[in-house]
Structures are given as C-alpha cells and as structure tokens.
C-alpha cells in the first residue's frame, strides 16, 4: 500500500501563478506580485511552521502560538536596540552581526517560554482539544499582558538593517531585498524540518505517542522529554517567525500574535493539519492569493484566504496532505 509521492498539490502554486498572468495584464506587474507573494508565503510559513509541528506531531491545538511570535519580535527589538550601531551600519556583514544574534536570542527566549508553557499549561490537557483551546488562549492573554508590562502597550519601531532596505530592480519589476532573505530563511527551516521528521525516528515516535502514550512508554521511550522537546522547538520557530514578521512590518505591537492567529490556522488547515510540505504549499498559496486579489479586486482580498481554504477543502476535505486520522 505504499503510494508514490503525491505531487498534485505542488502543482497548485505554479497553476495559481499561471492563472494570474493574463489577469494582471503586464509581465512586470505580475513578476513583482508573484515574487512578493512567494516571499510573503515563506514568512508566513516560518511563523506557521512551529504550529504545524506542534499540532501535526503532538495533536496540540495551540491557540497561544501567537504569543511566541510576538515575544520573538519584542526580544529582537531589544537586541536591536542594544546593537543599534550594527543595525545602522552600512555594511551587510555588520548588519548580519545584529540580525543573527537577534534571531538566536529570540528563538532561545521563545523556546524557554515554550518549555514553561508546555509544563504548566499544555501538560494537563494532552488529548483534550477543547481544553487546549481554552487554556492556551488563557496563556496567550497572559503572555500578551506580560509583554505589555515589560515593553509597554505602545508599538515599537523595528527598522530593517540598512543593507536590507530597498529593492533589487529588474526593469519595471521590483524585488525587495528583505524578501529575498525571507525566502532563504524559509527554505532553510523547511529543509531542516523535513529532514528531521523523515530521516529520524522522532517523527514516528511522536505520532505514535499521540495515539497511545502509554504504549510508547511501555516500549521504553521517555515520551515526556520528547514532547517537551518538540514543543520547545515549535516555540523557538515561532520566535524566529516573530523576528521575520516584525522586520517585515517594521513595527511590533503586543497584539501582533493574536492578529496572525487566524491566518496561520488557515495555512495549516490547507496543509492538512500537520504536514510540513502541506503547510509550505498553504503558505505560498495564501501569499500569492493575497497579492493577486489585492491587485485585481481589493475588496475580495478580505475573503481570499477563506475562499482559498474552502476551495481546497472541497477538493480535499482533509487538506492537501492529510496527516493521520484524527
């Protein structure tokens, strides 16, 4: 019953781009929109990746995911503030000297909070979706308020490092420099996740653990540590996503996590609630769709994500790559 890799969903992305080509009218406009959409998709993928991991493997509906995103972004603003000279320096490498630590610190802090979150908030409710929703929302509210206590309620500016400002211009089309970086980071995250999940036993173990925790323990695996590990990884990815998102918006606000919640849930539903490749496809589609409809009919853009999700679910009721029966 082994099936070949199902390539059809992969074709959706080029298909959507091709459909949009005649509609946008000019090739340069199309190129600008498409590249921007794909890059946006990559950023969305990074912020959603942690959630797919946590939901796909551990079956935890973490409505509090957003708080890790916000936390990552806020931590990064503090790191940037401390390294202001590097951010404002007109050298790519000096900029990276600020950006990399910002990312790492954000991931570390988000990961650490993830540890606490798992132990205190998620642990008592494994296997109970409804309670997960409530308790993680509670965690999210608390987290958001604590961010306000620490950083204040107002928005904080998070300007791009100098060398990432502006765009590469190809004739009439423009590709923002930052988006190129986003694509690279997104690809890196994607490859790392696919490798870990497919080439190691970790993925299997956690899937088994979700179905029958006792049995996995009876086979001699310390499932508790594994679950913590995955949750921490998921939170750290959210922290990274927060940095990416914050830099993209160039301002951060405490509510930024809550604002992307619906978006990332749509992405992982399209993906099949837990498939990494599915989430990537979902994110790219969402990114492209937002730009195309935004250009062709801005009113419709409001509903484009939801329409996209409904269309996908009509085609595949369990998302593009269904993960297990749950």
């Amino acid at each position, binding site marked *: 019953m082994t099936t070949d890799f199902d390539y059809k969903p992969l074709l959706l992305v080029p298909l959507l781009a091709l459909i949009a080509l005649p509609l946008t009218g000019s090739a340069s406009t199309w190129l600008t929109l498409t590249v921007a959409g794909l890059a946006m998709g990559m950023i969305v993928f990074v912020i959603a990746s942690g959630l797919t991991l946590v939901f796909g493997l551990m079956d935890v509906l973490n409505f509090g995911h957003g708080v890790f995103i916000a936390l990552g972004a806020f931590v990064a603003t503090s790191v940037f503030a401390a390294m202001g000279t590097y951010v404002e320096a007109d050298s790519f490498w000096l900029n990276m000297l600020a950006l990399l630590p910002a990312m790492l610190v954000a991931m570390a802090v988000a990961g650490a909070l993830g540890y606490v979150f798992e132990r205190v908030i998620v642990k008592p409710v494994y296997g109970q979706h409804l309670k997960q929703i409530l308790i993680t929302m509670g965690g999210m509210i608390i987290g958001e308020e604590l961010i306000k206590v620490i950083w204040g309620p107002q928005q904080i500016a998070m300007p791009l490092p100098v060398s990432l400002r502006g765009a590469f211009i190809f004739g009439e089309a423009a590709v923002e420099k930052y988006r190129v970086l986003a694509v690279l980071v997104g690809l890196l995250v994607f490859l790392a996740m696919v490798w870990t999940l497919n080439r190691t*036993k970790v993925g299997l173990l956690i899937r088994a653990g979700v179905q029958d925790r*006792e049995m996995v323990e009876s086979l001699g*695996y310390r499932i508790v540590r594994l679950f913590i590990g995955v949750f921490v990884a998921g939170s750290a990815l959210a922290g990274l996503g927060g940095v990416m998102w914050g830099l993209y918006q160039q301002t951060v606000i405490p509510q930024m996590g809550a604002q992307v919640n619906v978006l990332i849930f749509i992405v992982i539903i399209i993906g099949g609630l837990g498939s990494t490749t599915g989430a990537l496809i979902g994110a790219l589609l969402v990114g492209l769709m937002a730009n195309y409809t935004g250009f062709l009919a801005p009113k419709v853009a409001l509903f484009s994500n939801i329409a996209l999700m409904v269309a996908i679910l009509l085609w595949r009721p369990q998302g593009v790559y269904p993960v297990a029966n749950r």
Partner: protein
Amino acid sequence: MNTNNLLTLQGVHTHIGAYHILHGVDLHVPANQLTMLLGRNGAGKTTTLRTIMGLWHASQGRITLAGQDITQQHTPDISRSGVAYVPENMGIFADLSVKENMLLAARGARSIDDIDTKRLEWIFDLFPAMKKFWNHPAGKLSGGQKQMLAVSRAIVEPRQLLLIDEPSKGLAPAIIQNMIAAFKALKEAQTTILLVEQNFNFARQLGDSVAVMDDGRVVHSGRMAELAEDEALQSRLLGLSLKAHQ
C-alpha cells in the same frame, strides 16, 4: 516454590481513582519459566500487569525485578530494564504501518535494517500475515492480525521478561499453535513470561507455574501440572466445568 524469582509482588495494593482494585497481591514469577495468571473477569489480572509496568502505581506494597525495587519507577525505565508488555487492547499504533510499529518496538534500531534479520524471519514464519501486510497501516488489520502484531512487537528484540495479556483471544486455532511454539522457543532462550489467559487449554499446554486471582488477590499459586490434574480445584477457582467450552 522456585527460589529464583525474577519478579515478585508483595502485598501490592492499587487504586484507580477512588476505586480500590488490588487488595494485596502476592505473586512470584520464577526466572526462565512461564507463569500463567488466571482468574475470572474483573479479578484484577490486567490491573496487576499494568501495576507491574508502572502504568498504574501501587499505593502500597513492593514490586521487585531481578532484585531491584521497581515499585516507584516510571514505565520507560521499567521497560528499559528488559520488560515487554502486550496489553489487553493490543496497543497498536493504528496510523503507523506494521513496519513502523515493529521499528518502534525495536528500541535499539534506528532503521529497519538494524533489526536482526534472523529474528524477523522467525516472526514472519510464526505469523505470515506480518510479512504480507508489512507496509499496511496497522489499524486496517483484522482483529487476529492485530493480536499477532502486538505479540510480534514484544518479541522483536530479546527481553528478560514478557507480560502478555490474553494473547490468544481472536486467534484461529492454527495460529494459537504457532504462538505456543513461539513461547516455548522463547523460554528456551531464557525469557521469563507472565501470561494472562482465559483459554485454559492454552494455559495447560504452556504453563510451568500458575497463579489464580479473585477479587484483587492471588487466591492460589502452584505448579500448573497440579492444577491441571485437580478438576475440583479448577472448578472452585475458575468456575464451571471447563471441559465443555474449551
């Protein structure tokens, strides 16, 4: 009684929530032998196995494995000291394939190639269905095939103690014979087995020693051969005439 016990339970009490289920179980499992644990529905056999495995914790009493106290240990650690468990409901990972189920059971293996091929062949011989459905999702197996998978998982790597809860239920007679052969072979290979069974025929063919439970206590223990001889004792401990329905 055999002096060399691999596993002993002394006065074990277990509570599930507010219910007091085990009322002081004393049980000795001699090394390298097969011990049958018998008893009516609800006697507490499954609870005993789960308590040994650390899935429920004894509220009182002591459990020792090879001289070590494991009463308060966590399940993974108990398993790592060489105990395999086949639960009553089989504990199959329905979403994973048969192969993946087996891979997880082989704790030392990083991929399926790391599993001893001889042992795998032996399992395929015992349970041909495992080979046939190797890449099948385990949830789609028939009832009996799931049972076979559950037992296969427990024996994919050598262990010092097997705890097996009603392995014969739902199996066709031919497969039951294979399983009996398998347990005999395992015993040869110095494996100690504690087996819960309702099928007395099966029990008689395999058991070296026996313990009978009732109402959360062990009410009889001794050699299997003695119990098999003594029909009066059988009917007192286990209920009505056994012959008619086996």
